[in-house]
């Protein structure tokens, strides 16, 4: 299926070319923020290590939020840490994504019932793009989470700006 006969309803070919190139670039160089919270951080490090190797996908750790595109929330977000996570998310420069890794950051996980100090799901403070289940998720599961995020990025268009409305954190 050649470039020209891509059927997009109201965007013409020129935009499609540029848009797919931009999406391709954003998809293939997702730099994640080098910080981990708990056990999922160990599996994140194992994914960055030689056997599963994040670098094959062009994913490298960046220690400053300014240069990071993806924030992997790897571990339990506690009440004390919630405001820090929110601030870190705001410091990241704009085309930014969030991968919630592990049951704890998905919805409080093993600590949802009596964990008074645990935040029940990181999507209460920041909008989340991909939820990776597991406690801790295998490195391949995290890589699959990244592939899903890459799918989502290819679907984004610059015409209807990714409106912040639908990505607002849904307060419970």
């Amino acid at each position, binding site marked *: 299926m050649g470039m020209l006969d891509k059927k997009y309803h109201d965007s013409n070919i020129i935009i499609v070319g540029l848009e797919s190139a931009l999406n391709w670039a954003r998809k293939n160089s997702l730099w994640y923020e080098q910080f981990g919270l708990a056990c999922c951080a160990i599996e994140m490090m194992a994914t960055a290590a030689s056997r599963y190797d994040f670098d094959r996908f062009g994913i490298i750790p960046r220690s400053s939020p300014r240069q990071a595109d993806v924030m992997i929330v790897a571990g339990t977000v506690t*009440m*004390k840490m*919630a*405001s820090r996570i929110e601030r870190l998310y705001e410091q990241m420069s704009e085309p930014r994504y969030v991968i919630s890794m592990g049951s704890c950051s998905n919805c*409080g996980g093993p600590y*949802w019932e009596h964990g*008074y*100090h645990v*935040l*029940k799901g990181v999507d*209460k*403070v920041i909008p989340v793009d991909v939820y990776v289940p597991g406690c801790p998720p295998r490195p391949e599961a995290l890589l699959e989470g990244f592939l899903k995020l890459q799918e989502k990025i290819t679907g984004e268009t610059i015409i209807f700006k990714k409106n912040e409305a639908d990505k607002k954190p849904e*307060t*419970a």
Partner: protein
Amino acid sequence: MKKPEEILEYLNQKFGEDQLTLERGDIGEPWILVPASMIRDLSKFLRDDSELRFDMLMCLSGLHYLKEEELGVVYHLHSTKLDHYVTLKVRVPVEEPEVPSVESIWKTADWHEREAWDMVGVVFDKHPNLKRILLPDDWIGHPLRKDYVQQEFYQGIPTGE
């Protein structure tokens, strides 16, 4: 290598007969019940006496006894030189949970006591900076109390489901 009973006798000679009692649950190891006011000089003696030399405070834990309305603090001591163990327990009523701090004797007690204050609410007087260590400073209540009710919101973030 002294057994807890021998240690108790040795202490009784020093501190008078009626103060300390050796208690034993149905299972597990015995402990010496110590009145709160005495704990600091008893600990000083336990550490410095040549017979005992308890130089390591292994663990200090705070407890809440709901039925008896009391707060407990358990000290597990160990002597690396003479290799014997002792467990001290202090019980104070919930209304005035005052326990003298042993931080000056064993440095490790500093953080353990702050955690006991944070979790159970035992006030250790003459502790250098008795602040919350695990929970944020503006947290309400002491979570490990049996009758603890979790606050609904913390700085606007819902703590519930």
